[in-house]
């Protein structure tokens, strides 16, 4: 079995799982787009692994796997920062919600007395 078939199987499997998760509504649509792009990427790179070599030549990178790792890590970094931003936003909302709830309950208690 050639390495191209192995990488194609891996890439297609990963893409299928991601697409299945999106279809099953397990991923919120705002994350869905990102993962759709990832699915497309692994599919293309899985079926045509030599693509990265051509890309490396184009960018003047002498050892193509480095380009793959740098691109991959860059994407992960962006994703993680994005997650933390989202998380901070949620934290702010949850705190405000808790405060508002405490205020409303307090006011109600005050009226009842």
């Amino acid at each position, binding site marked *: 079995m050639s390495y191209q078939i192995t990488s194609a199987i891996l890439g297609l499997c990963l893409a299928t799982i991601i697409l299945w998760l999106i279809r099953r509504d397990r991923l919120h649509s705002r994350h869905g787009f990102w993962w759709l792009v990832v699915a497309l990427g692994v599919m293309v790179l899985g079926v045509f692994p030599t693509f990265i070599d051509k890309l490396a030549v184009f960018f003047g990178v002498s050892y193509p796997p480095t380009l793959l790792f740098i691109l991959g890590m860059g994407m992960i970094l962006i994703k993680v920062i994005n997650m933390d931003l989202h998380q*901070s936003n949620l*934290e*702010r909302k949850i*705190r*405000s919600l*808790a*405060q*508002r*709830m*405490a*205020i409303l*309950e*307090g006011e109600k*208690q*005050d009226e009842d007395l």
Partner: protein
Amino acid sequence: MKSSCESVIVLIPAKNEVQTVGKIIDEIKSKLSVTVVVIDDASTDDTIKIARTAGAIVLSLPFSLGAWGAIQTGLRYAAKHNFKIAITMDADGQHEADSIPILLNAIHQCDVVIGAYPQRGSLSRQVAWQLFRKLSGINLEDLTSGLRAYNSKAIKLLASKSATLLDYQDMGVLILLHSAGLQIVEVPTLMHPRSNGHSRIFNSWWAVSKYMLCTGILCLAHGKYGEKCRTK
């Protein structure tokens, strides 16, 4: 004689302060006719019951938001009900009701008054504060005092969204006030050693490191040096 201050609200954040919170409310109520609000930061003891019996309005948080989260809840309440001046006090018996008139006297000339008692810090705290002063460019004696008075301008700012993600009442809040151009004045006040419990921040090495790191980052991001980068 009780002095009447209708538009003044006293905010007391409390977490498991069953031994002291009632006494403080009684003391305030006997000396001044002000609205007293206790913000319960998810206490597991009878703090809520005691505060309510003592005649305070109790805002009870569904889960703990930390000292600042509780105070901001009170400030949002104050903003919603159009109070002109908000006083914050600790529930652990450090602050005296007698300090309130001192703060009220000073607030007419500025936006924020801090009841300062800078002698209380240990050497390590003094070193930490000195560092934060340098980093933030804020030259106040007592950076962490929980005894403060805010006027309506300061209440409005601190009740806003931009203050929600802060974790402590000290540097982050001061930086926010400072960069909004509000005037902060310190007045010397007397404070007692905590009659029960201990500092929520300076009680374990883990908490201290977390506090130092959070505050250090805040100072760097928003303080003097941050400003410099942003303007030019």
